[in-house]
């Protein structure tokens, strides 16, 4: 067996050299690709990280593809014929892998359009979190609850995306029900005063307090005010607590749900409800 192999190698020594050279070229192109992409990953330029990451991957892929093309020509495979076959194969694969290609193009759209960027706080569909990476196929989101959600890029592109990091300010909305016996005018005054005293509640756009509805148990007020986006949740929480304290200390009741029951007593016995 070994003798046969040695005989074949002696007869096809030029072919062995070619295969070895082709393998060396592929290995070298892989190494060159890695070396070329490394400084791109580490580059300190004012480019979004997702763009940098994907450019580095493309550079590596291009280097490897060039290496493979050179290797094929070394072993004597006709690249023209191969490209023709690849074109036909590509058509077949394209039809079969529509979803994959859709994700790929959606990924390119996301990267260059900048709809979501690494570090943005977003809500896509019903899921909210911070964008960890935007790849060519999928986007990774670290949910508020800590899990990592991978969303196919075609879904990101076709879904409504709330990007909370794009706004410098956001409007908060708080509903407060006060009892029917409380003075609405005084309640509005107290609420306005609390909002004015909080330095992070924006003076402009001016806070708005409206009597929203007359509920079953309370007069419902709606309080609308603007906050710096970066402090939104912290300040909103604090304002709600401050409003409760201030309303209570001003004698304005925030009632529990209540129902008035009328009892009708009948003078004639034995007929009708009581």
């Amino acid at each position, binding site marked *: 067996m070994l003798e046969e192999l040695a005989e074949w190698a002696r007869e096809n020594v030029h072919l062995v050299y070619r295969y070895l050279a082709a393998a060396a070229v592929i290995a070298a192109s892989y190494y060159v690709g890695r070396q070329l992409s490394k400084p791109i990953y580490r580059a300190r330029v004012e480019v979004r990280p997702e763009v940098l990451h994907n450019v580095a991957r493309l550079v590596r892929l291009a280097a490897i593809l060039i290496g493979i093309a050179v290797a094929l020509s070394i072993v004597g495979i006709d690249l023209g014929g191969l490209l023709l076959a690849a074109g036909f194969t590509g058509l077949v694969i394209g039809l079969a892998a529509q979803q994959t290609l859709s994700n790929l193009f959606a990924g390119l759209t996301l990267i260059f359009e900048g709809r979501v960027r690494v570090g943005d706080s977003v809500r896509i569909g019903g899921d909210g979190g911070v964008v960890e990476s935007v790849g060519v196929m999928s986007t990774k989101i670290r949910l508020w609850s800590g899990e990592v959600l991978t969303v196919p890029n075609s879904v990101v592109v076709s879904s409504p995306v709330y990007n909370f990091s*794009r*706004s*410098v*300010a*956001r*409007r908060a909305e708080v509903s407060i029900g006060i009892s029917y016996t409380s003075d609405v005018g005084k309640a509005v005054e107290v609420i306005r005063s609390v909002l*004015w005293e909080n*330095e*992070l509640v*924006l*003076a*402009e*756009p001016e806070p708005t307090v409206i009597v929203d509805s007359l509920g079953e148990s309370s007069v419902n007020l709606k309080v609308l005010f*603007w906050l*710096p*986006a*970066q*402090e939104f949740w912290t300040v909103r929480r604090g304002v709600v607590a401050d409003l409760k304290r201030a309303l209570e200390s001003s004698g304005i009741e925030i009632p529990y749900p209540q129902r008035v029951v009328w009892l009708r007593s009948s003078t004639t016995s034995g007929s009708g409800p009581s």
Partner: protein
Amino acid sequence: MLCHAYGEYELGDLTVVDIGGYTLSISRTSQSSYRILLRYGGTEVSLGYLGLSSARSVELAPHPPVGGRVSVRYLMVRFGEGITAPPGESVTVVAQVPVDIGIYVRGTLVKVVPTRVKYALYGPSDMGELCRYVSDALVNGLHRCLRAPLKVSLSNASRSTVSVSRVVVPLGSLGLYLNGERAPVLTSVKVSVRSQAYAEVATELTPSEEGNGFTKLVVPPSQESYAMIYGV
């Protein structure tokens, strides 16, 4: 001296300074660190720690308004009633602006204590600017040592009458002087109104008050401009 509270203080275990109702207390927590607290109107705010290994004194001086808890670059001055200027006319108004308290160690500013802070949004929520906010309601009742005049010279360069209700000023380029009574005075601002929707604001090197025996330039001004593209 109206504002005698500004000046140099030797630091002991507890140093308390009252500047116009704002009480700054600097208490020693270790051999080389001090804790700063600010009290005003029933509110107490911790302003963190100050590390001083060798210095044993600090100087307190007024400082032009800074960002505070939110990093902002502009100051929005809201005029109670709009200032109307016919075409080609100029109007000068003096607004009162709260000043912050600067803490200096050996002549170097180490901390700015914001006093009366409020913010406002200029422009749309995604492309606009968050600004430190000033209005009459905010400055009312503030001691003279904690507010400074800001002269705003408006000129109407448009062909129609304009009404200016707000001006957005670059914060970092405002300078501050002390007048003869050691009360703070800000440098002035020039506004060229091109239309109701557009104006150019430029900070000047000249103080907002003149001829009152200036004794000290505390914060040097610089010239910077800002285009108000979301209306005046």
